[in-house]
């Protein structure tokens, strides 16, 4: 078992899934090209078709539930809310009544406007969500380091994620401690604002005081040494096929943008 674990680091890290095993930069180019293309096209048929693809890819990558949970929250917060707002805000274009809801007439024109905006908001958001849900941050930073980005940048990204988890726990402890010594966290808004200060202050000062020790500990592991770094986990470099795939998505995005500009000029 131990040797199996050791040997797992001798070859490129793979999980046996087509989408997950793509090089992080390939996935990033594909996802961002698709996401940006939904903004360029801004048509509900195009945007929502991609949203269905996101669900499919997330399910194939084994994170369908996790993706659906976050995406559906966005759908409610952005999608449904915006649809209602446009029925109020975009009345000047309305002529066709769709239905009446307790005497409130819903119009087709403002509904289509809302759907078009929703399609690119959710189309872009879905692409970003798919990327982050199917790519580990350490793999993203590894691929950036291969491009020449400094290891300090990787440290900032990865350490931030760990710090969020650590400080969240500390903030709950501080808040509970402050409650136990009599600080009121319920009541009117000013009482609650007053409780914010004794929570965030110790949290930040405590985190600051740990930076010097961290700095020494990191230096003990040669963090500041200006030499080529080695990696315990290595990813397979971008293959020729992946480069071709990435280039195809970028070309398609540029073509869509050119077509969109041309159409708006001709109009």
């Amino acid at each position, binding site marked *: 078992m131990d040797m199996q674990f050791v040997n797992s680091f001798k070859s490129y890290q793979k999980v046996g899934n087509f989408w997950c095993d793509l090089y992080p930069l390939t996935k990033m180019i594909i996802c961002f090209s698709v996401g940006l293309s939904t903004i360029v096209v801004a048509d509900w048929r195009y945007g929502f078709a991609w949203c269905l693809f996101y669900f499919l890819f997330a399910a194939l990558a084994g994170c369908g539930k996790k993706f659906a949970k976050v995406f559906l929250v966005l759908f409610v917060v952005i999608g449904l809310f915006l649809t209602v707002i446009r029925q109020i805000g975009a009345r000047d274009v309305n002529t066709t009544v769709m239905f009446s809801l307790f005497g409130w007439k819903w119009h087709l024109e403002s509904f289509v406007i809302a759907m078009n905006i929703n399609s690119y908001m959710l189309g872009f958001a879905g692409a970003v969500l798919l990327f982050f849900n199917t790519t580990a941050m350490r793999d993203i930073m590894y691929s950036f380091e291969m491009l020449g980005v400094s290891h300090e940048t990787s440290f900032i990204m990865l350490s931030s994620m760990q710090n969020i988890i650590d400080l969240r726990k500390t903030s709950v402890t501080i808040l509970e401690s402050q409650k136990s010594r009599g600080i009121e966290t319920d009541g009117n*808004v000013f009482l609650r604002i007053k409780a914010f200060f004794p929570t*965030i202050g110790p949290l930040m000062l405590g985190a600051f005081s740990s930076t010097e020790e961290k700095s020494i500990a990191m230096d003990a592991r040669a963090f500041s040494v200006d030499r080529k770094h080695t990696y315990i986990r290595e990813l397979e470099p971008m293959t020729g096929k992946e480069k071709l795939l990435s280039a195809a998505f970028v070309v398609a995005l540029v073509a869509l943008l050119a077509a969109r500009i041309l159409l708006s000029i001709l109009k």
Partner: protein
Amino acid sequence: MAKQGKVNKLALFLIPIGIAVNFIGGQIAILLKLPLYLDSIGTIVVAALCGYWPGIVVGLVSNILNAISSPTTLFYAPLNMAFAIVAAFLSQKGWFKSIWKTLVSSIFFALIGGGVGACITWIVYGFDFGSGTSTIFSIPLHEVVGLPKFLAQFIAESGIDVLDKVITVLCCFSIFKAIPTRFLSKLPLGHVYIKDADKVLEEAE
């Protein structure tokens, strides 16, 4: 003052803390059921203590990490970066040493957060109202008061941001006051907050 290399490294280690504080500040606000964002304390503190670039990095990375759960925050990344630029500039000028100047600085932050934020919302949401909490105020301002849509959005977002930024800068002010001098002396802009630091530096020279 410490050696330049040491200063840079401490600033580097403060960046992840600033990013985490941006997140946790927002979460404590939710825990306390406050109708405020309070998600830029880390950016302002790091920019005021370490300068422009560390602050800008805190602002940018905070929005990138936020995008993992809420991708639309990516559109608002320039706001957090602008907070860092303003905070570093005002810190160099010594604004955060006085409570009154600190309170006045909240107007600049509110104008960026609310004003520029309203412009971003206006563009992103197809030159109309957005879908944030500000619509609770912007729609009545348009429908009842009769203000143009953009002005209604601008006033609503700026209004919400004023209270948010007043609390934020007061928080930052109390943190600057509480940081030990020994720690401040190792930070790029820490000398601004040390009493008589200029005199000591002149004497040393």
